[in-house]
């Protein structure tokens, strides 16, 4: 019971406090990995706590629990608090995860459908640059660039880019968009949105949508900076963002333009692939273990408080 409560407390602590630390991570790819693994870790730790409540004697098997339950019902006393709360918690968690799965599937399908529809319209009027991720060029004066997921994912860009940016800046924009497709950022954004929509409890879940969006933009910026230099990305960002809004709905709201500009200004050189892989692995492992570590910490603190002479 105590261990289970400590695990729940550890999960809550991580869900509450981790976002503040995660947004400070210098490498956006590492931050993305750490954030999403933390989400999984918190859910897994809560599930572990339910399991421990459900099986207070640590692995004697579900049958024993039912036997206990049956026994206690026969003797007129209710089943133990642990078993009841464990069962309730497990049922709640299962229902929540089922909802995440259902909403996730529906959202992914709807977005894929909308993406195909958009593409169907744009494709007809576009000139196509072939490649692993083809670029569709549109004759339009406003400088615009975006990527659409799919098989294959495509980059859509307007000729306006050429009129408002230097060739190197145009290449920086295209590299940025291709980085979205190569990093499967559309999928990550969808995962973040679904987590935020279906698990609105802790900052780690609630802020996942916004955080993932900001991190993927920064990750794509990093790729563009590595290929074309920070100054090209910075000027391209300013020129494209500053180019009049088509509709009020699109005013910069949760966009991270300012954060991105600030990061581009203090950019050190991008980490090597090996170093990044290593940092991602370490961050992932740390994030996975953190709720349990927090639980151990909480348990130790509790024992020191309650049994100071033990």
């Amino acid at each position, binding site marked *: 019971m105590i261990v289970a409560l400590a695990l729940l407390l550890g999960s809550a602590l991580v869900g509450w406090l981790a976002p503040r630390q995660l947004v400070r991570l210098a490498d956006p790819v590492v931050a993305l990995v750490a954030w999403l693994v933390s989400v999984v870790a918190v859910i897994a730790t809560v599930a572990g706590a339910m399991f421990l409540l459900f099986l207070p004697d640590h692995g004697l098997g579900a049958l024993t629990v039912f036997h206990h339950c049956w026994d206690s019902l026969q003797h007129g006393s209710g089943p133990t608090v642990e078993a009841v709360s464990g069962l309730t918690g497990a049922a709640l968690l299962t229902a929540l995860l089922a909802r995440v799965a259902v909403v996730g599937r529906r959202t992914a399908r709807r*977005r894929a459908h*909308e*993406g195909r529809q*958009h593409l*169907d*319209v*744009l*494709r*007809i*009027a*576009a000139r*196509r640059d072939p490649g692993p991720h083809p670029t569709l060029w*549109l*004759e*339009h004066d*406003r400088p*615009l*660039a*975006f*990527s*659409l*997921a799919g098989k294959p994912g495509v980059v*859509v860009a*307007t000729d306006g880019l050429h009129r408002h940016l230097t060739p190197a800046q145009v290449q920086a*924009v295209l590299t*940025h*968009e291709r980085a*979205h497709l190569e990093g499967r*950022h*559309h999928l990550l*954004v*969808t995962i973040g*949105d679904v987590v935020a929509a279906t698990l609105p409890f802790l900052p780690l879940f609630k802020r996942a949508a916004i955080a993932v969006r900001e991190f*993927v*933009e920064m990750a*794509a910026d990093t790729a563009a900076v590595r290929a074309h230099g920070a*100054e090209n990305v*910075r*000027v*391209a*960002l*300013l*020129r*494209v*963002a*500053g*180019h*009049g*809004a*088509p*509709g009020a*709905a*699109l*005013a*910069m709201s949760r*966009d991270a*333009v300012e954060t991105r*500009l600030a990061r581009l200004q203090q950019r050190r050189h991008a980490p090597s692939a090996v170093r990044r892989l290593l940092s991602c692995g370490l961050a992932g492992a740390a994030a996975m273990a953190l709720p349990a570590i927090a639980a151990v910490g909480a348990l130790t603190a509790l024992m020191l408080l309650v049994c100071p002479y033990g």
Partner: protein
Amino acid sequence: MQGLGELETAVMEVLWRDPGPQRVRDVLDALNTERDLAYTTVMTVLDNLHRKGWVSRERDGRAYRYVATRNREDAVANALRALLDSAKDPESVLLRFARSVSPRESEVLRRALDDTAADQ
């Protein structure tokens, strides 16, 4: 289907290049300078484009004559506006290099840009 999609683009190219009403045969001849397409293929593609509202047609004897409903620039502008102004959050489907900003924010960004230019 990728192949059909590319054909739609190619057929629209032909209609945009020569804005007068064209029969399936005319479009086929224009396309077949570089490839070998069947009459029925082009007819199907034009039929699809008509259904999607890209071309209009009028009967001329036993065949139809096809015209693009709008020129390429208008088509692109329409498509982009529909995409970016769509009521359903377009940002959820596409990741944009930079979202447009409000006039005030635009002013701040413009000044930042001027500073950058002055630094160089």
